[in-house]
């Protein structure tokens, strides 16, 4: 199993930390992982993205140009990465703020209204974990127990009291993810 994922959105949406928690969970489950962020000037006030690869084998390139899954949190990223999903691949996006929706018909497309849900729950800080939950529902590439360990490893000890909130958000994400277009 090798899963090549791009997570992209605005700086501050928790794109990089979502990727880190996913990657650390992979490490806890004894998988090979890589986490390759964009660190350029575009991050500063603009879009942020990270390529996460989780695999059972040694990872050759941490940088790829087509992805099994794209997790998209803003319009610019959707415009940029919709075409980079492999045929038959998966696109998950939060429709909040999206005016031009994805048009491809050769991939599976889901929406997750994570921004709305997180603010309803009063948990806007764990918005990214709602998104992660949606992804894990569709592709359970890491088991929940390892996600828990991944959270423990990625969050500083002083924030460990927030882990239950994060896990609640992940569960919520699993409930609210919605299919928009499915391949047969």
């Amino acid at each position: 199993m090798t899963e090549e994922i791009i997570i992209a959105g605005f700086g501050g949406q928790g794109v990089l930390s979502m990727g880190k928690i996913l990657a650390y969970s992979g490490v806890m489950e004894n998988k090979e992982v890589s986490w390759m962020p964009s660190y350029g000037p575009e991050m500063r006030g603009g879009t942020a993205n990270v390529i996460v690869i989780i695999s059972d084998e040694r990872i050759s390139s941490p940088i790829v140009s087509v992805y099994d899954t794209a997790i998209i949190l803003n319009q610019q990223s959707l415009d940029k990465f919709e075409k980079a999903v492999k045929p038959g691949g998966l696109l998950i996006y939060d429709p909040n703020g999206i005016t031009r929706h994805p048009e491809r018909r050769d991939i599976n497309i889901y929406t997750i209204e994570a921004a709305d849900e997180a603010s309803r729950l009063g948990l806007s800080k764990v918005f990214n974990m709602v998104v992660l939950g949606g992804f894990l529902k569709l592709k359970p590439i890491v088991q929940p127990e390892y996600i828990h360990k991944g959270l423990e490893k990625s969050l500083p000890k002083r924030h460990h009291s927030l882990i239950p909130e994060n896990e609640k958000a992940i569960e919520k994400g699993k409930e609210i993810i919605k299919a928009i277009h499915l391949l047969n």
Partner: protein
Amino acid sequence: MKELRLMKGNEAFAEAAIRAGADGYFGYPITPQSEVMEYLMAEKPEDRTGMVVLQAESEVAAINMVYGGAACGKRVLTSSSSPGISLKQEGISYIAGAELPCVILNVVRGGPGLGTIQPSQSDYFQATKGGGHGDYKLIVLAPSSVQEMADFAGLGFDLAFKYRNPVMILSDGAIGQMMEKVMLDEQRPRLTEEEIVKNTPWATTGKTKDRERNIVTSLDLDSAKQELHNHALQAKYREIEKNETRYEAIQCEDAEYLIVAYGTSARISQKAVDILRAKGIKAGLLRLITLFPFPTEVISKLADQVKGILTVEMSAGQMIEDVKLSVGCRVKVEHFGRMGGIIPSPAEVVDAMHNKIIGG
């Protein structure tokens, strides 16, 4: 105790330097390597091992602090990125001339000038052909993973002390910024003052009655003596070439088409090799680990076996010159690369292999 962590390349290097028993780090911030000093400052190695971490007033000051520390027999290091490494060149030349051990990390970004903060490999010439003035060589290690960023801190010190020679770790922004799994070595104790006197009898540790004073210098106004020193340096470099050449041959046994690459380019090329193999093309990758000493012999051997060689570098083509010197005119050697901080995709490397070598 060994420990498994998920870390950025820059952080792994910093942690590994502490664990390698380093005595001091001197640096000045610059993207994309600032996490090295940030990590060291946050980690407070002074409390763990007594290691000193200091933000110098400039890159020039930092490399001269390294010069001073190394002259005392201490395990000292610095890190920077391309423009900062350019500033350090005078000091590096002096350290090489004075035959002092130290580790210098260059997390390369695109140039020339201030260039870009994105990854590049355009400092190959600077690292392997001099950079500073005079006939000298650095031992140049090229990590291609976070694990190697960690491993080469310790290996760098071992080689630096074995040959009394500065070691450069030539990384790039991608390896520095990305996170991977890393198995960290156990803590090596820092050497005691007695051990330093014993292990490095040339160091300026304070004159005792039973020996002449030690002088650390790169200056000799007597040309005859300076030439002898030059000969001794060259003999040392030949010895390093004989003993320390390192590379990884990936699917080279039956390869008809060869890629030569190092660092981030080698990772991308490995995926390109997988794609080519899936299409039935017998491709292989020679990943260079030492850039000086350059793996001339193995490339020369492979030149008799393959139909063509593609070098992949994030530059206009620098390492290709050494590959061509190793190959002569026996097979076609072409370069593919991107510049300006752009990382080529595996698909681009596959296309280049088709267009420049297989079909070209």
